[in-house]
């Protein structure tokens, strides 16, 4: 409820605005690259094929194209929204945080411990309420991935404390 209220307040995120922000960002990146590249050593007395040659051309191109995008966004009458602040998108953001936590636990505790927990949490979050089914499918999936990857094909999985 709160989210939808905030959304109305915010008025959604318009693609046009997003374009303008992203083009400014790209211009800044381009300038940063140009500064960074100027510190690169010039090999063989300023020959054109130094390490700075290619990035410099690209940085100029990026700045040029981003300015073009900025101008065309100003002219554009497109009022479509990006959907970046939609209710649905919030589900994606929570999933991203969940993935981040999973990656941290995976690194510390290993695949066999982290994966069932992650799956139980995420599948529950996506709306499955039947707990026996939920736990069974999470453990089963972990088991299948582990046996196919690690046991059958010897593909390494994060071992964590068990390794």
């Amino acid at each position: 409820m709160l989210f939808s209220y905030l959304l109305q307040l915010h008025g959604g995120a318009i693609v046009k605005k997003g374009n303008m922000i992203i083009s400014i960002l790209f211009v800044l990146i381009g300038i940063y690259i140009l500064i960074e590249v100027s510190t690169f050593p010039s090999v063989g007395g300023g020959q054109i094929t130094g390490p700075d040659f290619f990035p410099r051309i690209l940085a100029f191109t990026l700045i040029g194209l981003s300015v073009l995008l900025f101008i065309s966004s100003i002219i554009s009458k497109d009022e479509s929204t990006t959907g970046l602040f939609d209710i649905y998108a919030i589900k994606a953001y929570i999933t991203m945080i969940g993935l981040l936590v999973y990656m941290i636990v995976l690194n510390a505790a290993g695949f066999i411990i982290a994966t069932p927990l992650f799956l139980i949490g995420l599948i529950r979050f996506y709306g499955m309420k039947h707990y026996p089914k939920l736990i069974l499918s999470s453990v089963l999936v972990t088991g299948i991935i582990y046996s196919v990857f690690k046991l059958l094909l010897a593909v390494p999985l994060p071992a964590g404390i068990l390794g």
Partner: protein
Amino acid sequence: MLELLGHGLAAVMSFKILFMIACGVAAGIAIGALPGLTATMGVALLLPLTFGMDAESGILLLLGIYAGAIYGGSISAILLKTPGTPAAAATALDGFEMSKRGEAGRALGISTVSSYIGGTLSVILLILISPQLAKIGLKFSAPEYFALAVFGLSIIASVSGKQVLKGIIAGVVGLLVSTVGIDIVTGYQRFTFGNINLFNGFSFIPVMIGLFALSQSFISLEDMMKKISIKQTVSRVLPTWADLKTILPTTIRSGLIGTFIGIIPGAGGDIGAFVAYNEAKRFSKHPEKFGTGIPEAIAAPESANNGVTGGAVVPLLTLGIPGDATTAIMLGALIMQGLQPGPLLFRDHGPLVYTIFVGFLVANLFMLILGFVGIKWFTKIIAIPSYILTPVIFVLCIVGAYAINNNFFDVIVMFVSGIIGYIMQKLEFPASPIVLALILGPMAERELRKSLMMSGGEASVLFMRPISAALLIIAIITFFMPIIKILIAQMRQRGRNISDSNNS
């Protein structure tokens, strides 16, 4: 060549390789049939499985997934009107109409046979064309390779759809990202920030898993709650003689169209299928019936999209340039196996190349058999709820990124690429230009600088050599064609608007 083919046949006829191909095709059909899982995603997600395998089994597993997934996309297109992969979008038009009449089995049978014929035709063409192309490729030196990379990059404009400017920007960003790491020519570290994981640049498999699999799954969260129910019952799948006779000419023509579109770098199964559909309509004696669920209209796109699979492998193996996004990941797979695709592959690894050829033919045969025998099973897979499937995909993304080098840095790269891919998609930036740029960027830079060293700094060297000049001119045309088309369309639109306002 026959001798090498014989060798290939002998190599494929081992239980292990046949088993791998069968697994790949079965997994591919399932992946393709599941709406939301594309062939590219399937190959990216299952690529880590091949790390412990020898090159033959690994590559053939991936080719099996590729062929199977392109075919499998038709199952959900026919039963649900939801194409399982973009390549099956054209199949949904008539396929669903036919299955609505209660003839789902007939539609699936036609799609199975057509996919097989299209796929097999394309592999035969692959076997015939590739060695010749590789022979020409052997004569290439730096300027030609540079021109080739530029040609590959010029496709960016046409794969970007309506967002040409954004596509080009994405391509430039990709090229910049590809400069990260130790400069090959001088050994200088560029943009590594002293991080040892960046010395060799970003490895592009984690980036691709992030851009194509992870971000796609974030997007699919939005329509997760849609319930999938199949109303049609699938009965007889084997097509009748009458149907076979009707579709045969269309199938062969579409397979050829698909193959040639596949060879063009950047143009994938979706484009091939639509072109073939339109051509079938043009050749038809009763074009008005297209869209009502007639056999030819299912056969054309299905034969063409599987035709693309063999075609897309031609530039991949002979020149090291992927024909579409899926073969771009296979390029990564080949490099992981220590093989550098390109003309030298044919000279140095001839037996391997022909094993791949024969295996690819076998994969198409398995596709036909599994399509007829297992169709009931595959239609059940479509019903797997996405609230279970999506979390599993997330786990596979992470596990896959980790397995490449056994380190978490790649996992982080994959995760960040996934988030960037998600935001890009929301801001209408196409993702495939980044991948093209990441793959072709290092090649373009290296060969350009080599060419300039060869000529002592004279850029004219690129245009003095006939092949490189021709490739660069084609590249320029390819690059500007979509832009000119859009400009013309805009001008027409404007002209129409003016005349409209004059009339009113």
